[in-house]
């Protein structure tokens, strides 16, 4: 089980307190996006083998979404950071 540090609660808590939210930093422009951009946004993913930026939600804690960089080969968490912040450099 992963131990995940919630950047809002500032506590390391067990994975069962969290819900996974998939790849982070996916964006689209709702008013101007083409079919291809919508397709990409909705369905296509990097599915990175290595360090992946992803979303988690502290579902039974503070309830807030945040982001996390995790190595998908070792499952080791590199860093967690608040929603809206950009991915920390050198991760």
């Amino acid at each position, binding site marked *: 089980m992963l131990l995940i540090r919630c950047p809002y609660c500032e506590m390391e808590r067990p994975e*069962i307190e969290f819900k996974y939210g998939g790849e982070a930093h996916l964006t689209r422009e709702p008013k101007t996006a083409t079919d291809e951009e919508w*397709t990409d946004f909705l369905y296509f*993913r*990097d599915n990175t*083998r290595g360090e992946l930026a992803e979303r988690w939600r502290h579902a039974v804690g503070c309830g807030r979404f945040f982001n996390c960089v995790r190595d*998908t080969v070792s499952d080791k968490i590199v860093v967690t950071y608040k929603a809206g912040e950009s991915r920390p450099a050198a991760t």
Partner: protein
Amino acid sequence: MKFSLATLARQALRGHQDWPEQWRSPEPKAVYDVVIIGAGGHGLATAYYMAKEHGIANIAVLDKGWLGGGNTGRNTTVIRSNYLWEESEAIYGHSHRMWPGLSRELNYNVMYSPRGHMMLAHGHHDEIAFKRHIYANKLAGIPNEWLTAEQAKAFCPIINIEPGIRYPVIGAALQRTGGTARHDAVAWGFARAASARGVDIIQNCEVTAIRRDASGAVIGVDTTRGAIGARKIGVVAAGNTSPVMAMAGMRMPLESVPLQALVSEPLKPVMSCVLSSNAVHAYMSQSDKGELVIGAGADSYVSYSQTGALHIATATLEAICEIFPILSRVRMLRNWGGIVDVTPDRSPIVSKTAVPGLYVNCGWGTGGFKATPGSGHVFAHLMATGEPNAIAAPFTIERFRTGKLINEATAAAVAH
């Protein structure tokens, strides 16, 4: 060497000293007509049917590890075809109809055992969903039937149908032709039969790059055993499809997650069918060795670690103990994870790509084993002719742009 009673008698007289290797292990040639990336069941079946039905034998099947060492050797060997939509019924039904003749086809015992696949219903929503599947399957000529709780218990006597349990059994859907096969034997049988037709199986050969010419078409691969030329490349890499396709600059509608399984210590025969329960999430059968083979859930997060968290296995074992109280003291011997590539609609992708000469067969997610012969058969047709047949045609990557999805997310035997 053809396996037969005469061969067995001859080898017995020689003290079993003369059995040959089951497949050749050649050095890779400089160039092949077709390179398949991934020597699991689907990749080996693709090569076999391309050689047998399309006369293309100049094929290499590459694997970064040993053949059948990925999800082929890690799954719970369930075979069934009770899916909801016509497209799924066509492709899984096609595969299901190939299983009874597969041992004879390959001259290799894949131990196909149509012992029945039963899904327990635990509430009104299960019942109406299962009946919808049963009626849809009947229209498509796929066997599936409704049982009462008492009939389900008669079919699998160790289940608990007491009304007071947390998830009482109110009925079941039974596909009598569902069952299991020996997963390793399927890979070995296809490998042996493909090798006999001239296919080169090259193990411990990891693809590190896909080479393309100025027009963008594929011309070969770089591997840990040197460059290998190819006119066509088929990617059949299951959980590692995304990293392989990224070598050709392609992003995929896939997420790779660990799916867990366990086996118990060997027991005397206690159940003769495959049993699954969607609501409490457990599925189980008993191997010929006596081990209970238990499918657990998938971890929620993307991972390539081939392991998973203990709470997933724990939840499944809690469900097993409730459905089968007789098994509450049984010890588990091993648990493990396989990396499954899951699509947004939980249906596979058997498709051409935007890159000329590059084909992909992936997205079988949590249930690809049952499809091994059919998947290889239709993908061989696609790669050999350049066009999908009627069965494979709906399973394009394009469907995620057109919106013509094949939503089997709620149709799996268990919820993943």
